[in-house]
Structure formats: structure tokens, C-alpha cells
């Protein structure tokens, strides 16, 4: 009787998840498969939708993987992400350590958090164009300040210097995201049971030791979350490089997403190559996430599971032996 009632309600589980399933199939699954298929075809040219499979199915992938422009874009993407993530994480960790340390109550902590997070909420398109104007030549605000205070004698044209443009993109990314990372890390630290910190204090641990031996190991999961989301965001970086300097100067800020956009919607509209590049990036993102999860997996838990498996096997074996 009870079982019958349960299965009577079970259909609602399917009904209530149906809209999600349908929307996912139409707007996510089908486009993904379609993108994968296009990667093997000759689909190019504005307004074209019909295509034929190439006689050499991997021709597009080969073209992209041997293209120097793609190499530049890939190196830029990784470089910009790494160089923005390191200072971002260091800054966020420092602020987390300061804001959660019970010994110094920083006045205005709440107001600081609000201000540090603010750049994150502003439209990236606005931020990119604002920084383009701020670093303008010859008399943008940055040049104005640097010359007025005598740091430089004549204005610098930041936007045509490769390393300067790259450094500014890295700076914008760090500036937009360290506040977010800080809030996430602080919430992680506040989730640690206070008794652990009390115990450390009783044992005479100093701030530095407490931070490295207690705080960091206890927020490992949150660090992993931050790392993975930042990596995926970083590998898809588009708005800032596209609108700050259109991927230039001389491809210095060209990221893979800008590359995909240029392939598909500029020049000769090579949807097939853009699709192939998307699939390559898809594989890179999956691989990177899996590696990160594996590297930062909970080692204690994994060890525990291994022991359990071992025990199970032993129990199984001895059971078999007993049966024999």
C-alpha cells in the first residue's frame, strides 16, 4: 500500500524537472553537439547554415592546433589568468587573515568589503572601456597623474605597448576579482569551528602559524572552489580583452575566446574553425578541472575510502574462504 502511494507521487518528480530537461536539451545539449559536429565540416561564410563533412575530418583541428595565432591566444589566456590569479589570491588571503584575526579589529571592515567588491558588480564592458579611456594617450588620467607628479617626463602610449596592454588587462582582472575571492575565503574561515582557534591559542601558536596550520588546511575545499571557478572564467575571458584593446596591440591581449569570436564573426566567418577551437578549449577546461580536483582532493577522505575498500575486499575474501 505504502509503496503504491510512493510511486503515485514519483511521476511529479519527472514532471517538475521536465522544464529544466527540455530547456537544457534545446539550449545547451543540442548546441554543444552541433558545435562538435560543425568542427568536422566546411561550414563558413556569412549567413550560411548548410555544410558538408570534410574528407579529412580533423583538418580544422589540425589547422587550429598548428596556427601561430592560436598559440599566441592560448599562451596569452593562460599567462593572463595565472598572473592575475596569483596576486588576486595573495591579496585575498592577506585581507582574509587580517579581517578574521580576532586580535586586530579593523575599523570600517564592512565598508572596506563593500568597496573591494564593488568593481565586480559593474558591467565588464563599462570597465574595459573606462580603463581604455583612463590609459588614453597623450592626456589620459593616468598619464596626467604620472606626468604631474613627475614619475615620467613625457606621456606613455600604453595602448600600443604589448607588455603594458597585457599588464593592464591583468590588473583589471585582479582589481575586479580580489574582493570576490576575499569574501568567499572569509566566509570559509568563519565556517571553521572557533574551538580549533581557541586550542591553537592555548598551545601558543602565533598568527602566522595559526594561518598556515589551521586556516589554510580548513578552507581547502573553498580554495578549490575558487581555483576552479576562476580557471574556468579565466579560460573564457572575453569582455575585458575584447573591449579594452580588441585583442591588440599585435595580438598581445588576444585570448582564446576573442580568437573564437574573430574566427566566427569577423573576416571570412569560419564557423568550422571557431567550432573546432571551442571543442579544443572544452577539452582543456575539462582536463584542467579534473586535474585540479584530483590534486586538491581531500587526501584524508581518499585514504579512508581506500582503507574501507581494502577492508571490504578482505572481508569479501574471507567470506569466500569461509564459504569454501
Amino acid at each position, binding site marked *: 500500500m505504502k509503496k503504491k502511494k510512493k510511486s503515485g507521487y514519483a511521476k511529479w*518528480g519527472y514532471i517538475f524537472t521536465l522544464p*529544466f530537461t527540455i530547456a537544457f536539451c534545446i539550449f545547451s545539449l543540442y548546441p554543444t553537439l552541433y558545435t562538435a559536429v560543425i568542427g568536422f565540416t566546411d561550414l563558413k561564410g556569412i549567413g550560411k547554415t548548410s555544410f558538408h563533412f570534410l574528407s579529412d575530418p580533423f583538418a580544422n583541428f589540425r589547422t587550429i592546433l598548428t596556427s601561430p595565432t592560436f598559440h599566441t591566444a592560448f599562451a596569452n589566456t593562460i599567462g593572463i589568468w595565472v598572473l592575475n590569479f596569483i596576486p588576486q589570491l595573495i591579496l585575498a588571503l592577506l585581507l582574509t587573515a587580517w579581517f578574521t584575526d580576532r586580535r*586586530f579589529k579593523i575599523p570600517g571592515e564592512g565598508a572596506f568589503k563593500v*568597496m573591494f*567588491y*564593488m568593481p565586480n558588480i559593474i*558591467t565588464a564592458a*563599462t570597465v574595459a572601456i573606462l580603463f581604455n579611456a583612463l590609459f588614453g594617450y597623450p592626456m*589620459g588620467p593616468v598619464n596626467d*597623474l604620472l606626468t604631474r607628479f613627475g614619475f615620467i617626463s613625457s606621456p606613455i602610449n600604453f595602448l600600443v605597448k604589448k607588455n603594458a596592454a597585457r599588464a593592464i588587462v591583468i590588473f583589471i582582472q585582479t582589481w575586479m576579482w580580489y574582493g570576490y575571492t576575499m569574501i568567499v575565503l572569509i566566509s570559509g574561515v568563519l565556517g571553521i569551528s572557533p574551538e580549533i582557534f581557541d586550542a591553537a591559542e592555548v598551545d601558543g601558536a602565533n598568527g602566522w602559524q595559526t594561518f598556515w596550520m589551521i586556516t589554510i588546511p580548513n578552507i581547502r575545499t573553498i580554495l578549490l572552489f575558487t581555483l576552479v571557478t576562476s580557471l574556468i572564467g579565466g579560460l573564457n575571458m572575453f569582455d575585458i580583452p575584447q573591449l579594452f584593446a580588441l585583442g591588440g596591440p599585435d595580438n598581445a591581449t588576444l585570448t582564446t575566446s576573442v580568437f573564437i569570436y574573430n574566427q566566427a564573426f569577423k573576416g571570412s566567418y569560419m564557423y568550422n574553425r571557431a567550432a573546432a577551437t571551442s571543442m579544443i578549449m572544452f577539452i582543456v577546461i575539462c582536463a584542467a578541472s579534473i586535474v585540479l580536483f584530483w590534486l586538491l582532493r581531500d587526501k584524508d577522505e581518499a585514504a579512508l575510502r581506500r582503507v574501507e575498500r581494502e577492508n571490504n575486499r578482505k572481508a569479501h575474501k574471507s567470506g569466500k574462504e569461509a564459504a569454501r
Partner: protein
Amino acid sequence: MSRNNHHYGTRTVIFIICVLLAVLSLFPFLVMIVNSTRSTTQIQQHAVSLIPSGYFLKNLKILLGKSFNPAVGFMNSLIVSVCATALATYFSTLTAYGLVIYDWRLKRAYFSFIMAIMMIPAQITMIGFYQMVYKIHMTNNLLMLILPAIASPTMVFFMKQYMEPALSIEIVQSARIDGAGEYYIFNNIVLPIMKPAIATQAIFTFVSSWNNLFTPLILLTNQKKYTLPIMISLLRGDIYKTEFGAIYLGLTMTALPLIVVYLFLSKYIIAGVALGSVKG
């Protein structure tokens, strides 16, 4: 005593660093706002000034005299963001409800699947998405920016995490005894319980939809359908090349509403970021 002094010194250093970072956060926006009231000539003589000038209306005239139309962009962005947020929150809560309350055979597999697709960025599938939308002649239809929100895996995950401790099966069962239907229970009992989670998620969906550049940039070709981020990208083009006053004003018009709303809601937004990270 010396220990206290030591802390006092460290505290001062930390405070100064925080003030510098705060200045760094605010300064670009301050320059933007002040320069939106200054003439291009004034800006070219001294690009940084903290004193507003009287060229606001003149800049506005130059700005609106060309293809930049903030009102159209604002309206389109509002339509897309409001609809996408409503759909995403309603259907994510519904999906989470289906996963939490009912026992069905594929439930576990379904949830694992949602976890797996959470990490897939939309940009990767954009070529196929564009081709599909192009084929059915919907490229300039805002619906194509709204409907995909029905399937928001990250939000389903968050809603499920929130719902499990917040909603007890007894509430649902007693409603059933009173003769309430399943839809009625969801809309009138579950949704109100989920209000705090919905509010948090709504803010973030709204902001990310409002700020989205990539999808609209690819789909929209008709200027009347442009969303705000695409309007903003026009400021980068050749048409405003030397009109710095107008460019700063355009940027201010797009950023200032967000800044004001943010300052009002900052308490909830920051709490929401913290909550989302712990649970999701």
C-alpha cells in the same frame, strides 16, 4: 603591553593598506563621473580633476546625437534580465523541489548530471547555438537570451542545498491531507519558504544577465534590440573617438545606476556571495 603596541602598529599598517585599496576601487569611477561633466578640451588639458564642470548637457547632446541610445539599451536589458531572472529562479526552485521531495528512479543520476554540467561555460557552445538560432530566424529575438535561463544548473544545485534543511516533508504531507494539489503546494507553500534563497540568487542572476556581453554581441544585429553592454561597446568605436566628455558620460550612465543599487543592497549582496560559496 609591548604586545599590545605591536598589534596597534600592525593594525595601523593594515588600515592604511585597506584605505589605499578602497581608493583604488573608487578612483576610476570618481574620475569617470567628474569627467562626464567636463568638456573634451578640459579633459585633454588635465584629465584628472575632482571639481565637476558645467558641460554635462553639452556632453549629453553629443552622446545622444550618434548611435548610442542608452534608453533603448536600458529597456532591452531590463526586459531580458527581469524575465531571465524570473524564469531561472522559478524553474530552478521547481527542479530542486522535484529532486528533494519526490522519490523517482532517475533522481540520483539526474542530480549527478546537473553537477557535471554545472562547469560547462556557455561560450564554448556558442557556435552551435548561433547556427541553431540563425536557422530558425530568431537572431534578433530577445527570447533567445531569456529562455535558456530555465536550465540554470548552478542555481538548481544551490536551491537543492538550501531546500533540504529548510523544507520538511511533513509540511508537504499535511498539505496533501488537506487536499492541496502538487502544483498548489509548490506555488503557495514551498516558494514562500524558499524566499530568502530566491532573493539571493535573483540578485546574482540579474547582475550577470545585465552584464552579459558575449551572447547578445553574437545574436543581436538590429540596433533597436541592443542590450546595454552592446550599447556600451559602441563607445569604443570610431564615432566617439575624440569626444572624451561624451564617452565618460556614456560610461557613467551605464555604471551609476549599478553603483547606486549596489550601495543600497550591498549588505545582502555580500552576504549572498558568502552564502553561495559555502553552499555551492
